[in-house]
């Protein structure tokens, strides 16, 4: 798992070229992306790092299909969102994309297993089967039986983020986007969460994009894309890959 997967099984998941995005119009217009060139392959964990406000969230929003780009090219598994209807994009996200958020975004009135089952139910699975599968996924991220039905409000931050990872994984998406997944956690918990991510989420047919400015987890990346001022300024392969240690 330490090296890049062999090219025979790895394919291009995301391809961006000259990607631009401007917020607002006229005098208050702000160009958040100024021509992003980036390729992400399946089987790799790509980290997107850079100072606050440089456009990381904007970029993964466009890649995840929750925000429309203005110009340039961007394909995700050879699909171009601009040629799809809103409904098609929503369905594409439902079956192909997993999300992990800084603030977890677990629905507080649902149990852990119900939260994890949501992507399956959204894709049309009946609730019973979905919850059973969700429970299995939760066990894999280290939940014991009595935690499966607990409410997110009774869980620690690290536990909540593990629920969120299970939720992002349960429907076997092709791409998972994570925005600052460890920022709300202490460093030890953050490393544990990243470890689970590498162990469970990384697969030869899946791409992982993790936005972070948390230098303590850089070693979990296969590649690190540095971003500044709306552009990718360089790609780096970290010296010591944590998965190898």
């Amino acid at each position, binding site marked *: 798992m330490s090296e890049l997967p062999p090219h025979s099984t790895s394919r291009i998941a995301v391809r961006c070229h000259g990607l631009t995005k401007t917020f607002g119009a006229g005098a208050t217009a702000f160009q958040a992306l100024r021509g992003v060139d980036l390729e992400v392959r399946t089987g790799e964990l790509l980290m997107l790092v850079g100072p606050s406000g440089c456009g990381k*969230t904007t970029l*993964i*929003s466009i890649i*995840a299909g*929750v*925000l429309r780009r203005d110009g340039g090219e961007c394909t995700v598994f050879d699909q171009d969102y601009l040629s799809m209807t*809103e*409904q098609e994009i*929503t*369905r*594409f*996200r*439902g*079956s192909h*994309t997993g*999300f992990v*958020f*800084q*603030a977890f*975004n677990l*629905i*507080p*009135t*649902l149990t852990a297993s*119900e939260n994890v089952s*949501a*992507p399956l*139910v*959204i*894709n049309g699975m009946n*609730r019973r089967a979905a919850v059973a599968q969700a429970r299995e996924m939760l066990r894999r991220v280290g939940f014991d039986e009595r935690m499966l039905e607990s409410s997110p409000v009774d869980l620690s931050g690290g536990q909540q983020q593990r629920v969120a990872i299970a*939720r992002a994984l349960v429907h076997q998406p092709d791409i998972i986007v994570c*925005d600052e997944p460890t920022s709300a956690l202490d460093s030890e918990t953050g490393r544990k969460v990243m470890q689970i991510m590498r162990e469970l989420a990384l697969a030869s047919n899946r791409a992982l994009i993790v936005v972070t400015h948390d230098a303590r987890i850089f070693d979990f990346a296969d590649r690190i894309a540095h971003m500044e001022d709306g552009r990718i300024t360089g790609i780096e392969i970290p010296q010591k890959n944590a998965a190898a240690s």
Partner: protein
Amino acid sequence: MYYYALKMLIGDRAKYIGIIIGLTFASLLITQQSAIFAGVMARTFSFLTDVSMPDIWVVDPQVQYIDDIKPLQATKVLQVRGVTGVEWAVPLYKGSLRARLDNGTFQTCIAIGLDDETLIGGPPRMLVGQLSDLRRSDGVIVDQAGAEGKLARRAPDGSRIPLKVGDSLELNDHRVYVVGICQVTATFQANPVIYTTYSRATTFAPQERKLLSFVIAKASAGEDTEAVCQRIQEATHLRAYTPSKFKTLTFYYYLKYTGMPINFLTAVALGFIVGITISGQTFYNFTLDNLRYFGTLKAMGTTNRTLLKMILLQALIVGAIGYGLGVGLASAWGGLLSGRTQIAFLLPWQLLLISAVAIMFICLSAAALSIRKVMKLEPAVVFRS
């Protein structure tokens, strides 16, 4: 997803209960007030409901409602009988009489005098005795509520002894004997009702030139009642109404000249405002509180159409519960009070439907705001904290 939509709603215990209380209160207020209004309005024409045989009522053209009695000349009965298409026509007396009770006090009663020969216009239901017993000399039939209430005697210990068959009463200085007890639809004034024959009633009545209150008639089989009414009006220069027209006339009179409709509309409007402000507002706040989660569901692939159905379901569930509780409380209140008091309370299915529509309207307008908000929500917000 619908199960999760409900769990989201019910899980927010405080808001959920708040919304339901608001809707319950609104539906209680709307249902109860309309039922009282309907009950009071039905009483205004209860006499028309009870006297069911005639299909034509002939009255003075100035009459504005059923109790607005303007006596006619006795000969008008014969005139009506002479109109083609009239099968029969009989006189009917209705007026007030003072009954002197044993203890010397007086009680105002409604006296109804029925045509001596046919006794048409009698009470809808006899409880003791028969209508034909009125033919016995000085016989009267008293309604049960009156017999057990305002006309009852007082025992030495203060308890009430109901008036019964064989007892006597004094009506305007005429001694009469109770020959039967009947049941009538509750009246507006809630005074005892005394039935007797037309000729006897007119002798009890204060001496006036004209004593005929109504001519009641029936159109011959196959005749168009409206056309017969028209002919009666031309022949007698009086006004002839079908029972439903006469009810409508009475209903609109009360609507126009009493404060009841304003009272009623105020209460219903209050129910609406309470419903919209408490429940609508709380429901919208619930949606706003959960906007982040609706956004997350949207990002994870929930379509707008599904989100719309989820919110509608949430609104309809609280609506159904609030409506059920409100209507239940209203009927319980009505049942409890109408068993013990003379309160006017009428809850026909039409009213249940009206309050259902009102509650539905409140819920759907609340849901509409929430739906708009969620439909317009950009899924990109999920990455913004």
